[in-house]
């Protein structure tokens, strides 16, 4: 039962103040606990780094495992170059350098493919530019992780998933529309497509197909080939980003 009057109010105030004091104590206690816990962790990480630094640099499987575990506990070892992980394991440099090389390769090829490149081609070009010894332990998983990191620099990079595990890397701003995505998927097999094929495969009206394809030509994603036939529905639209030949002629 609560009593009325000034005495009761005073009592309540006192109680609140005490609770607050207590809360502060707990928070300070926890912060202290965190800092000791952090210190033990740092020592552990140091030990780990001394023993396994090379493995993490050389073995892509080990690296993948490491990244997955970090993700599962809600930690991003690549977030800051100043963090423990980068500092002691040197894992940051590996990915950041990869990022720089990815940007350079994509920029150098933008005029050819309109800013879209298959992951395999990017990977091959990376291996070529790094040299065979330096790229011995490189996996496509690493490339994708490095690209994920680049995204925050202003919607420049995105990853496009195609059927059968094929992946395209887009290195220019502006996401592909849903329709454009479908066109690329439909054109995957031959790296090219006609209005007629789009009608068969996606059931699109000619107007819709032509609009999408012309947009893609204007954006540099597709090339027109009129030599195959006289009628409009025979015009071939080629997608340089899907050329397998790009890889073989490297």
């Amino acid at each position, binding site marked *: 039962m609560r009593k009325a009057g000034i005495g009761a109010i005073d009592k309540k105030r006192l109680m609140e103040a005490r609770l*607050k004091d207590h*809360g*502060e104590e707990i*928070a300070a206690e*926890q*912060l202290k*606990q*965190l800092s000791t*816990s*952090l210190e033990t*962790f740092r020592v*552990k990480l140091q030990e*780990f780094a001394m*023993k*396994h630094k090379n*493995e993490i640099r050389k*073995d*892509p*499987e*080990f690296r993948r*495992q*490491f990244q997955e575990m*970090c993700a599962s*506990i*809600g*930690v*991003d070892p*690549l*977030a*800051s*170059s*100043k*963090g*423990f992980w*980068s*500092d002691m394991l040197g894992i940051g*440099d590996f990915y*950041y*350098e990869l*990022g720089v090389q990815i*940007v350079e390769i994509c920029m150098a090829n*933008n*005029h050819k493919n309109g800013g879209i490149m298959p992951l395999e081609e990017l990977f091959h070009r990376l*291996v*070529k530019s790094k040299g*065979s010894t330096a790229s*011995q332990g*490189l*996996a496509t998983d690493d490339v994708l992780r490095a690209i994920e990191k*680049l995204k*925050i620099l*202003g919607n420049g*990079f995105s990853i496009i998933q195609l059927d059968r595990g094929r992946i395209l890397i887009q290195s*220019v*701003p*502006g996401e592909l529309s849903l329709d454009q995505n479908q066109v690329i998927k439909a054109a995957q097999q031959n790296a090219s497509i006609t209005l007629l094929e789009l009608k068969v495969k996606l059931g699109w009206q000619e107007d819709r197909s032509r609009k999408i394809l*012309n947009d893609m*030509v*204007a954006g540099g994603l597709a090339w027109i080939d009129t030599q195959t036939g006289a009628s409009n529905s025979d015009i071939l639209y080629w997608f340089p980003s899907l050329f397998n030949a790009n890889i*073989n002629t490297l």
Partner: protein
Amino acid sequence: MIWVDDNDQSCSMRLHLSLVVLIEEQRHGAGNSPKIMLHLAPPRPSAISVQVSSASHLKFSFRKGGMVEFSRRLTDQIARKRWQNFGGPQNSAGQSGFRIGIAGIERKLQTEQKGVNQQISHAFEDLNSLMKAAKDTVALSKILVTKVKNRQGEITDDETTQLKSYLLSLGVDDPVTREASRSDNIYFQKLAKEISANLTIPLKESGGLMTLTDVYCRVNRARGLELVSPEDVLRACRLMKAMRLPTELKIFESGVIALELRDFSETVVIKKTQEALEVSPLTADMLAKTLGVSVILAKEMLLLAEKQGVACRDESIEGLKFYPNRFLST
């Protein structure tokens, strides 16, 4: 495992994985590319008429890398023995036990392989215990973060700052750390100064604007070692304005982020674009070449000019082209 001829898709070879007795990795020596050697059991007679090789081993050479990944996948597949579920050819070699001679060598190789595997599993064990330690620390830090969010006066500013720096070095992704634009962080201030000092001249040369992706590449190329992460670059650039450095961050409507010179204003951009347009109508590509900026930025400049009524667009299959706006100039 199936090989297909690049030029003639109908020509192919296959190897049933059940025939693989042992995988042996040969690390690269001087001038040698790394190789994987597969020791094979003799093939069983096949019902289908195909040509069968009687070779007892097979070598893969990796001139351009990728060996480690290939080897991992292959070992993985062989360990799973999926063919047993399909009633395919059974591996009889494994049951017959070891003989002397070549089999003896194989056995020796196998024990060696075991040693290597053990070493790797040790590493994974260590990784596991490391992650356990990290997990506890992260959990504790998250409890504190919720406290900060609720902010019932329980935590002082000093403590918040301390917590933020803990979270940062641990790499915990949290809004609290991300919005830590408080200028008390010396590291980012230093980085901001470094970026600004290194890029002022290149920025002047490239017309006063540069995408942040370019900035990231240039900063890291200049450093060579101890590279900085994309997040750090972005964070440092955010601080520039408050620090009154000669460069600062600019975010375009399209989401493109760039670094620009402080004394570089929009009117200058528009005037430059206008002058270039008077010479000839331009696409983003062409403007990029004329002014020496990246194509992405050239497009932003043209859109800006259009918005101010200086340029007119011509949208066709040949791409987006801009003309000077004659409607307003008369």
